[in-house]
């Protein structure tokens, strides 16, 4: 149980810990990557998480927003959040500067089943901001590359200016231990990669469905189509993993907002296997 790993949550799990912003990278017009360092030494040193988990990012006077951790669990001492400006809290975060103090509490939720995935091929499909939680997984796989078989990453964005982490992906494109395909709905002159929705990329990849685990994260409309493609390739429903976004106020299974079917996204998810998701009403 993650909760017991993180002692600092025992006293008051609603209490955000002061956290310093140590770096801010503008990714696109509306998205920034924040690198954070929890100020309290003890809390920082005991902070452990799995890819796919999230934190509640807190700005007092404005509120909280659940945000997936983008950095890999192996990166110690710092965590990264990739945040789109979507409203009050995320807007307030965007107006912060390096050195400013915000709050975080967490990590919360159930992440990707990394132990299960080890020893298998991995297919990761991201749409838009969905790359944020997958980024953590990608980085973890990168750090422990030898533990995994073939790794395929499909990533679609609306247009070239909305492609996140491009600098990193551009570097990876030349590596032969990752198959990375980028696509945009609408290309411009600068775009040399694929054009079209992410599902179209399935024609271009080979997967051995019997030994592949996959993870999907993106806007709600994307899931059904991507899963259809995966099913066509013969993948099992319990080896496909999806990550959900629901409204949350607590992150710890109390406030009730994130109900999806008979489960709560915050404690039962946000990562669910497709088999689980199929059994959740109104999930996909």
């Amino acid at each position, binding site marked *: 149980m993650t909760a017991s790993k993180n002692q600092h949550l025992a006293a008051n799990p609603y209490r955000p810990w002061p956290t310093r912003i140590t770096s801010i990278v503008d990714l696109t017009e509306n998205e920034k990557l924040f690198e954070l360092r929890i100020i309290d030494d003890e809390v920082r040193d005991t902070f452990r998480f799995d890819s796919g988990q999230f934190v509640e990012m807190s700005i007092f006077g404005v509120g909280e927003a659940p945000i997936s951790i983008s950095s890999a669990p192996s990166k110690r001492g710092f965590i990264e959040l990739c945040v789109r400006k979507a409203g*009050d809290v995320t807007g*307030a975060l965007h107006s912060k500067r390096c050195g400013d103090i915000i709050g975080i509490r967490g990590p919360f939720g159930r992440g990707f089943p990394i132990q299960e995935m080890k020893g298998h091929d991995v297919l990761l499909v991201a749409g838009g901001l969905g790359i944020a939680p997958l980024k953590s997984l990608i980085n973890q796989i990168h750090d422990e590359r030898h533990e995994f078989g073939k790794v395929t990453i499909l990533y679609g964005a609306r247009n070239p200016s909305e492609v996140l982490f491009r600098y990193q992906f551009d570097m990876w494109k030349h590596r032969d231990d990752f198959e990375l395909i980028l696509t945009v709905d609408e290309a411009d002159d600068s775009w040399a990669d694929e054009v079209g929705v992410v599902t179209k990329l399935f024609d271009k990849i080979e997967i051995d469905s019997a030994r592949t685990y996959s993870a999907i994260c993106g806007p709600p409309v994307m899931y059904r189509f991507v899963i259809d493609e995966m099913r066509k390739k013969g993948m099992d429903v319990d080896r496909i993993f999806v990550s959900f976004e629901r409204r949350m106020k607590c992150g710890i299974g109390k406030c009730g907002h994130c109900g999806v079917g008979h489960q709560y996204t915050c404690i039962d998810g946000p990562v669910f296997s497709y088999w689980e998701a199929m059994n959740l009403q109104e999930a996909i």
Partner: protein
Amino acid sequence: MGARVVVLGLASDFGCQVQLTNIEDHLLDVLGLIDLSYWQLASSGHMPDEYDVALVEGAVTTDEHVELLRKVRETAAVVIAIGSCAVTGGIPALAGTGDLEGRYEAVYGEGTDVARGRTRPVAVTSVIEVDYIVPGCPIDTGEFLKVLSRVLGGLSDKPSEQPMCFACKTRENVCFFEKGEMCLGVVTRSGCHARCISLGRPCTGCRGIAPEANLGAARDVFEQHGFETARSLHAMNLYNTNEEVAL
């Protein structure tokens, strides 16, 4: 220096402006945060050409009001409508139902020309777009402070969208319908802590119809409790003539 704020009153009873002065405990704090540039009620001086935030009270009843509002909208970065008159038209808008000319004669007698340039009274929100609303007749000072703090912090307006019963229940009131009286809480925008109801008076709808109210279902509730639709509409019209309220 804080945001430059002007306070403007159109056709109203000044009750909401009075409520602004009723923040006694915090008045000095608030004044420390803003640069109060114009407020006829409290200070001599002229309306400046530039300002950041305009608080507008009152309904729009004359051509000058309309003109003033257009100018305010062009000048101010933030416009806050305060009080029912500005938000829904409130009581002044009652005069807009029926024969306005007739009302004029009823009050002043025939053939006099006193109120120049008058128009059918409407809410500020139907003349210009506003950024924040503080509904209520009068506004609640606590709610005003909350909105002001959102304005100063650059946060979005988040007025309640729901009817009153939820808040009413948290105050443990016995529902007026149980006592055979009509209450407009079922359709009225909450946010006032169901103050009237908790003091023994049914809700009269001063905060306007809740955007999420289910008017069709409310009509059935009224009828089941013996209140004909005409009667409930009449009651709902007290503060809401400005919107086309259909039950």
